[in-house]
């Protein structure tokens, strides 16, 4: 078990022992759900919010970022998968790949690109969300 593992107890610099922090799976799930929900709107900027939701449910910024990243990326990936199965968006994305890259076969690159952009937004949103939580908790403990 490494020091980065979520189930490890870690002492603060002041010697105060933080309680065990479980893996914020639910934070990631919340981010995932929110990103799926927001994908139904035309406001892609809400991906930051979905990440932030995951972040708010994480006590450490690192885990907030990870929850937002994975949750939003997974949410967008799932959205794309559902769209591919229920609409003609796979073909259309292929045509967009054709326009951008010159080959409709490179649709996978666009899927990867969108997923990575989701991860980026989720990471940034998760970092901000968890930061907000840390600030709130720090003020509370003061």
């Amino acid at each position, binding site marked *: 078990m490494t020091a980065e593992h979520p189930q490890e107890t870690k002492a603060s610099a002041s010697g105060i022992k933080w309680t065990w922090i479980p893996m914020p799976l639910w934070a990631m799930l919340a981010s995932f759900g929110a990103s799926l929900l927001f994908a139904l709107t*035309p406001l892609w900027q809400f*991906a*930051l919010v979905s990440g932030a939701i995951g972040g708010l449910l994480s006590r450490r910024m690192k885990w907030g970022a990870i929850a937002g990243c994975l949750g939003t990326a997974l949410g967008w990936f799932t959205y794309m998968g559902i769209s591919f199965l229920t609409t003609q*968006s796979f073909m259309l994305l292929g045509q967009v790949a054709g326009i951008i890259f010159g080959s409709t076969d490179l649709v996978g690159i*666009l899927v990867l690109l*969108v997923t990575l952009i989701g991860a980026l937004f989720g990471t940034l949103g998760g970092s901000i969300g968890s930061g907000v939580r840390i600030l709130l908790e720090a003020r509370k403990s*003061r």
Partner: protein
Amino acid sequence: MKLCLRVSNEFYNEGILMRRIEKVTLGKMGIAGGLAIVVIVAFSIPYGIIPPLGNFLLPGGDVWTAPGEVPLYEELTIPGLSGDVTVYRDQWGIPHIYGTGEADLIFALGYVHAQDRLFQMDMARRQTRGQLSEILGDDYLETDKYNLLMGKEFWANETLKVMETSSDPLVKQIYDLLLVYCDGVNFYIQHHPDLPIEFGFLNYVPRDWTALDSLCFSKYMAEMLTWGYDDLDRMNAIVGLGGINYTELFGNPQPFQIPICPDYGNYSDITVPLSAGSTGDVPFQVSSAFNNFLTQVTGIPQEADRIAQGPAIGSNNWVVNGSHTSTGKPILCNDMHLAWNLPGIWYETHLVDITPGSDYNFYGFFIAGVPVPITGHNAHVGWGYTNVGYDVLDWYYYDAVDANNYWYKGDSKPYEKRTVTINVKGADPVQFEIKSTVHGPVMTDFLPQLAGNGMQNLPIACKWTAQNVTYEFLALYNMSHATNRAEFSYASRSFHVPAQNMIYADVDGNIGIRPTGLVPVRNDVVLPTWHTGNGTMPYNGSAGEGEWISYVPFDDLPYSENPAQGFLVSANQIVAGPNYLTQRSLQSDYDSGYRSRRINSLITSKIKAPALISVADMQQFQLDVFNVLAERLTPILLETLDAVVPSKSTLQQAAYDALKGWAYTMDKDAYAPSIFSVWVEAYRAETFKDEMTAYKSPLTPSYAVLENLTLNATTNTKWFDNIYTPGVEGRNITMVTAFNKSLAALNTFFATSHVSAWKWGDIHKATFKHITGLSALGAGPYPVNGTSYTVNPSWTSNYNSTDGTIHVGIAQGGASERVIMDFADLNLTLSVIPSGERGISTSKHYHDQLDMFLAGLYHVQYFAANCTCKWSTAWTESSILFKKGGA
């Protein structure tokens, strides 16, 4: 006390820690927030042609919300309908619209046009109205200016004003239908915020549709079919070649013409051009001014494309009367040759007025954006078109007085001026001043490149039949409602632009053809000696040359009804023979005649057999790829090879054998077509390129002229001699030289001397471009049968005479639809388009008919379903119910 201090210290230390945590966290949040802002901005702004990627590509964006297929069933409540309207889409997505009264039908038509072709409609109106810069930026400003100068929008608007105020009840009715059509389009736009992907890519939303947008389409078609620079090329050819040479190579009539209207006599098989040549020299100032103008115009992509496209424009139509058909009634065929695009230009629709007592049942080809059919048939009559090629556009040059005045018949005359505003994406609107002379808009002074080179002293204006209030919508409406020959003929009087050979048949057994449209009569009384008159070359506008004094009266235009020969054929050839009474030269330009010769031959050979012609025969005729030019020249080539090259190389012998065993069909899987096609291109270049280059002629004589010279070999005409060599080459040497060059080129291209590997389809293909030019949304290239001059055409060129190499010829134009109307039973009428009904690139109807088209297949029209009760649910792919209701 100690304990209190310790606790106090701990609180103190923890407070410091908390502040430190806050500080670090805030710092990290700042970085994350800053990055977030950067990323959001990065995904919110366009990069050149690339739209803002956030709105376009990310979940919830345009890619994910763009419409795909139409819903299987839609029910919409529409205020103002007089009854319910039912739309059934068949397995090709073609709507069959059943409604009570025409207004209801036209509303639904507007809706389905927008549902299937909204982007195409929007681009067409923007192109016509000079509004491309608004969505594409200032790169298109020159294009917009040029389109505005043409006056398409202006004259469509003038037509609209007349229609709005007309007291003619029929004109008023059509105007009202126009408004209803707009309502249908706009209902779709307003209720469907999810737009086709092209809108997302270009990052704009369409504005509402207007009656002016629809009316602009007749000008759009006129531009497509009649705008050009032939007069300028003709003048340069005369300047270079001199009048005598010009007349020999380009004079009227061109050889081997079979007139469209057989009632005015025929030309002999090999004809010496009749028209008088010009003498004297074109003033240098005039020719250089027009050359400068043409050079600058070709800098506008739209015009460069038009000039390059050239021969893709054409068409075939023919009709055979019941005495020669297996059905006992006329069979009419039409395939209009236009640029191949996706979505295609035509939109098939079936309209049925189910009002008791109405027998309006129409199936035809519409242009999305236009509420009246362009071609088709009702239960009584049907019609189709080919382009006439009447000379309907003249160019005038002037002596300028100053920037505001020009000389006209000895007086200083001020330009008429109007200013239009051009909206430009990402920039301030541009005020554009349009100046006009008595003839038409001045086309030169908007080109900044021309300033300072003397051009400002020689303004150039144009006069064009489309620069008029014209009534094509009235004509088309009446034609679609005609029940007999007289009504149709009357209706066609209002068809002004673009002039068309209207072929006609009806269930009563009548056939006819009427090359109709506005044809100017010019005052050519006083012309310089170098001018060939009849609008063939630019006129001196200041001197009052070539004034349009009237239009040829409708009844004076050539036509033919129920001719004794029992059939009529038009394929853009000359309209009338030598006995045409008005003695007017109507056309300055027409097709070299190979398609018309072949169609005439196919029909007459059947009649002489004697055999009756069936719909199946007509299908074969439309798909025919027999090369008449090859039939005429190949035997001479083989004779010449025998005479000049008795001992042939292996490659020469193989090519010789291939041509000898060839049946002259341009089959994509055969190899003889490659040999002939490359050879005949090389032969034409070997014959004419030396003189055309030396004399700077922009025109090259047609293959018909080459055929004429080849057959007329006894004179061994001077054109076969290569003026750059010391010897004197005759026809035979030129043919053999071209043969050897073509074999070398083919051998190099295919990298094999096995001629059987030189398949025609490997160097002759067709492509179907998306209207934006985005290749991923287009189709092809596909290997195809045919060539430039076969009945089933696909215009390409393979041979580069400069370096003697060949390349793959990509045809971008040909038949834009095929229809065969059987007037014994119009339910057996067949049609197909080389695209599909729906302009949505992911739809199965985007180019489902293209596959059929390439395979030579047709579809039925379900025309017998003249009420919903006769419509079979088995044919239904989807449906819409427009329910009458609401306020």
